[in-house]
């Protein structure tokens, strides 16, 4: 199993994420400027990003309240949001196909962005 992400800090150290979507370890990333992130795609390759202002990641799943899959958590997408300047690029990654399903751009003042959890942003080195 490969880790979901690896982040590199300005001081040369690294932090490795979890290998399980149910325990990504994103919240345990130390509060230090990130130089680069390698984020695992479902095809086993890493999307590498650097030189950003801040970054956000989350996993999206569904929990059916009835039906044949009721009570079985189903992970559908992961999202990676990267801010450069006042623009945020969101990668929506469909976990079952191995591809980036969609790329969307948002202004930092977009309502969706403002209603994300402020505790989950991590800072980059391009502030």
């Amino acid at each position: 199993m490969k880790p979901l992400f690896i982040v590199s800090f300005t001081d040369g150290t690294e932090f490795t994420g979890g290998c399980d979507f149910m325990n990504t370890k994103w919240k345990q990333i130390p509060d230090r400027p990130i130089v680069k992130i390698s984020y695992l795609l479902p095809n086993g390759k890493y999307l590498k990003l650097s030189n950003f202002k801040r970054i956000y990641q989350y996993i999206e799943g569904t929990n059916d309240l009835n039906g044949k899959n009721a009570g079985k958590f189903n992970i559908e997408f992961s999202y990676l949001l990267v801010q450069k300047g006042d623009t945020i690029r969101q990668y929506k990654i469909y976990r079952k196909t191995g591809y980036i399903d969609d790329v969307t751009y948002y202004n930092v003042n977009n309502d969706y962005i403002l209603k994300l959890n402020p505790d989950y942003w991590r800072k980059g080195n391009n502030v």
Partner: protein
Amino acid sequence: MATAMKFLTNYVDADVDYFTTPADYIELDLTNDYLIWTGGDATVKDLMTHEPIASELTTAAEVISDSVDVTVTLCLLMDYSHDVGGTYYTHKVLGMSENKQYVYCFAFDDATATEPQLEAWDTSGHTDTDKNVLGAGTPADSMVKGKCTTVSAPGASWVGSVIAGASDVILLNAGNGALSDPGSGLTNDLYCNLKIVLPTAYATPSVETFVLTVRYTWA
């Protein structure tokens, strides 16, 4: 760790929240328990001592009216393990379709990355809304209506929003966004009220199942 969610229904007093009186709520074992929407009769009712069979549910189905829209009378929690009250398999969900705030509860044990939402689909594949109850392919015609009641009661004679597919959903935190950390041992408790409204003289009577699903996120 990922945020976990419990789904509960109120069976005692729909004016009382889960935090204040958790004993008023039954947590669904989602593998075995389920909701039944029915007109109800002498057999299919609150406090049944057996699991209703298909023929009983068909007999008790709500009747479409030629002159008015009909709100399905009863929502029953089918409690397979009948762990409340000893021998009872069904419990009426109190306050369903009424001006009541604390009816359906979604308790999250941690923060989320975005706002949780309630969706309705034909099946667990989450791809189609072709069933009559979900608008027969036109989500705006869905008979399933809901209103987030996390902040306040739905109001007298509430209409609600249709629920069907990816776009017609109920935001469970009243549009206020992601949930914050509730603190150790606590939960973020979100609420909604639901109802099913059968349109006047609807031409296709049917007994259907559909899937309610909660979509939520974590970091």
